[in-house]
């Protein structure tokens, strides 16, 4: 064997290693997690539309101990819609273990609940929770120590009795406190069952088409612990009421003000451009974000925000009904959102699935965002033979490989193949090892905890914000965070709203690739437009304060 042949052989091995994409590896650790909770969402099989959306998940660091706790609002039954089993609060006690602290929390809420928004509405440094319900929504103020109190009435909320699905906090009027948007769905009285509809020869659950849509709500935070309803004056009700299912809030127009993107079921989505002064106008159609490439109104459930082409502009990914595809809207320099679903390989793998919660996250730390979608059909009658789609469906996890997203297929990972009636999910580093874990919930089924088992390394950075100058939005909802590392620029946003009836935590995660190259520099565009730049260290979670003081935590 010559030296040359050894070099060539070694080169081939190195090339093979370099060209093999890092695998996404997760595992179901529910049994050991301490979360032994089965959700309630009417009966199985479902017969009414109220039963098929499921409950969301709030991811919240309720005790500011640096890890994320979980709240499941939970649903109820048609027979007793306001007397369900109630929500469940789990405290993260480290090591991917949780304990049920509902009883001591003060949360005694049994109405049929759906979405959650998390934010510190009263500027006391503790994140609070807003729960969207069928009926009056609730606001729970965080008292600290894992205790909450229902402040709905004193905050001026809960006067509407619509079907709230998703909600989001963000500073919409630039006064540094967190306002609130609530997406509402359809008129639905559990006491008056809706007759079934017909779909492909089957009697199926009726709606939302043919049912009266309910208008969304926008509340301005007055900064004194109360809110005032600005739904009419703000312009968000200029378009006809629709079937709202999800909302995310961030600056989508590039003017520095947070805009509101609303996913509507079977209708055009809304993109409310923030005009300033708590005034909005719907520009979804003229920006291409109302419909897909064909101009088709889709049934948008999940919404993810990412930057798939690395241009620093936020792209939108939506999940939709079966026999349709999920849709990727890529932002263009002129403010348009091009439907690039096919280009990125996202359409075909989603055609047989009915998608719900979703996220663009770097699961394998290769410095690009992967795609995670939870699925499950709404019609119990759905089979491949009858509707090209199964009632129980697996997750769709797609790894970013080059210019395409590729479904992860790995028989050695049972969590990928498990079929469920999934609806909601949250994503964050739950065990403090630097990678992104997931918690998934569905209809009348046990909540699942999925641990990311990416090998321990320093190929990640997590960033949190702490703006002491603006305590009412201290954790930077609306901020844009750009990481420059080894010639790669990645951008993330701290958004209001999230995957589906759930929230995205107020932190961002970056994978750095196998061999992170210094320097690593983070630029934060704070919600008020001020930009700061800080050096950061791989393999750490860092809190960036105003004034560019980055301190490893």
């Amino acid at each position: 064997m010559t030296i040359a042949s050894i070099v060539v052989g070694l080169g081939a091995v190195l090339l093979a290693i370099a060209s093999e994409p890092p695998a996404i590896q997760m595992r179901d650790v529910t049994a050991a997690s301490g979360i032994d909770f089965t959700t309630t969402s009417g009966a199985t099989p479902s017969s009414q539309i109220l039963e098929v959306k499921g409950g969301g998940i709030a991811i919240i660091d309720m005790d500011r101990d640096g890890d994320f706790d979980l709240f499941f609002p939970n649903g109820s039954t048609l027979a007793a819609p306001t007397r369900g089993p109630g929500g469940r609060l789990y405290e993260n006690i480290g090591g991917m273990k949780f304990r049920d602290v509902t009883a001591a929390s003060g949360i005694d809420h049994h109405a049929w609940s759906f979405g959650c928004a998390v934010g510190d509405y009263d500027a006391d440094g503790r994140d609070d929770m807003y729960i969207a319900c069928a009926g009056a929504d609730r606001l729970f103020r965080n008292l600290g120590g894992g205790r909450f109190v229902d402040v709905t009435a004193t905050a001026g909320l809960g006067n509407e009795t619509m079907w709230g699905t998703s909600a989001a906090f963000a500073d919409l009027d630039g006064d540094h406190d967190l306002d609130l948007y609530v997406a509402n769905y359809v008129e639905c009285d559990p006491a008056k069952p809706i007759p079934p509809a017909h779909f492909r020869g089957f009697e199926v659950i009726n709606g939302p088409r043919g049912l009266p849509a309910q208008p969304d709500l926008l509340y301005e935070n007055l900064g004194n612990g109360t809110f005032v309803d600005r739904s009419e004056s703000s312009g968000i009700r200029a378009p006809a009421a629709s079937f709202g299912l999800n909302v995310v809030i961030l600056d989508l127009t590039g003017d520095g003000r947070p805009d509101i993107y609303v996913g509507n079921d079977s209708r055009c989505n809304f993109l409310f451009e923030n005009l300033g002064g708590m005034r909005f106008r719907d520009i979804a159609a003229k920006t291409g974000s109302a419909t897909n490439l064909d101009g088709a109104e889709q049934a948008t459930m999940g919404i993810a925000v990412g930057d798939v082409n690395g241009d620093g502009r936020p792209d939108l990914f939506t999940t939709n009904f079966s026999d349709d595809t999920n849709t990727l809207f890529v932002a263009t320099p002129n403010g348009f959102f091009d439907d690039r679903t096919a280009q990125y390989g996202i359409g075909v793998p989603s055609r047989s699935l009915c998608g719900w919660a979703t996220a663009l996250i770097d699961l394998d730390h290769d410095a690009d965002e992967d795609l995670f979608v939870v699925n499950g059909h709404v019609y119990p009658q759905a089979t491949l033979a009858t509707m090209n789609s199964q009632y129980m469906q697996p997750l769709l996890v797609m790894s970013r490989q080059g210019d395409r997203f590729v479904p992860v297929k790995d028989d050695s990972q049972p969590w990928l193949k498990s079929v469920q009636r999934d609806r909601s999910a949250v994503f964050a580093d739950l065990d403090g090892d630097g990678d992104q874990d997931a918690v998934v919930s569905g209809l009348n089924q046990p909540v699942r905890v999925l641990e990311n088992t990416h090998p321990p390394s320093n190929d990640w950075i997590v960033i949190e914000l702490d703006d002491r100058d603006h305590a009412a939005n201290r954790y930077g909802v609306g901020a844009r965070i750009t990481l420059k590392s080894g010639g790669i620029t990645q951008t993330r946003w701290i958004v209001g709203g999230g995957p589906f009836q759930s929230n995205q935590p107020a932190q961002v995660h970056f994978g750095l690739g196998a061999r992170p190259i210094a320097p690593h520099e983070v630029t934060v565009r704070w919600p008020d437009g001020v930009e700061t730049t800080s050096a950061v260290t791989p393999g750490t979670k860092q809190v960036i304060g105003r004034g560019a003081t980055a301190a490893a935590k």
Partner: protein
Amino acid sequence: MHLSMRIQTSWLTASFVCGNSLLQGCGGYSAPAEVEAVSEQLTAPPPPPPPPPLAEPANHQNLSVAAKLLRSGQFIDAQIVLQSILAEQPDCARGEFLMGVAVMKQKRYAQARPILESSLARNQDFAERKQVDHFLGWSCYYLGDLEAAKRHFQSHVGANPTADDSYFGLGVIAIDEDRVGDAEIALGRAIELIGEHPVRSRDRAKALARLGDVAIRKDKREEALALYEEAAQLWPEHYEVWGKLARVYDASGRSADGETARAKQQEVMQRTTRPESPESVP
């Protein structure tokens, strides 16, 4: 809105009413000059020599009834007739073919696929035998099995080089796989084969619209606009092309034109699709 409504296979016009041969050589479209090389993915791999087809079993008298029902869009009725035929003659490949089409036209692709595969596997000779691959191609496409869909479309164009709709299918698959050049070639070939006869305006418009999608992919909005406008002019009932047009107008800053196109899309949709009711869910 179901994606499956995006691409309606034109089997009635292509296979039963007009016949592709009627329109050969009428095309006015030429593939862009820069797209010269035909990808291997658009041509069928060298097929093994097929065994000679077996003679068709005695033709059941009701097969023509079923075919007539299919032609008139009565797919469920056709399915019922075909069920009784296949109960009597379970090895009738033509019966299976028609059954597969009846099921497929009800958008039950997973159910249609094995029926069509069985029809093909019987290797019997019947009038529409060459079309089986075409319908199998679409069934596989809607089931997300692009490789199988590609194989069947390739087989169809291999056996029937004027099969414009299978070229169209190959073009749609190439879009999904982001093979832009191949998509242009396949759709261009489909447009060429469809020709300019007014009776094929619908199919030509759909292929032009898909070619417009390819132009969007290439960031060539002006090109897309021209293709979409031509498609809308050819077949104004194609509501999706109005939606596509609206998007391009909006992206080009022509908001008023965008509004007009969107209004047209809504008007056509309301006129040509079922009225909104609980029965039209989801």
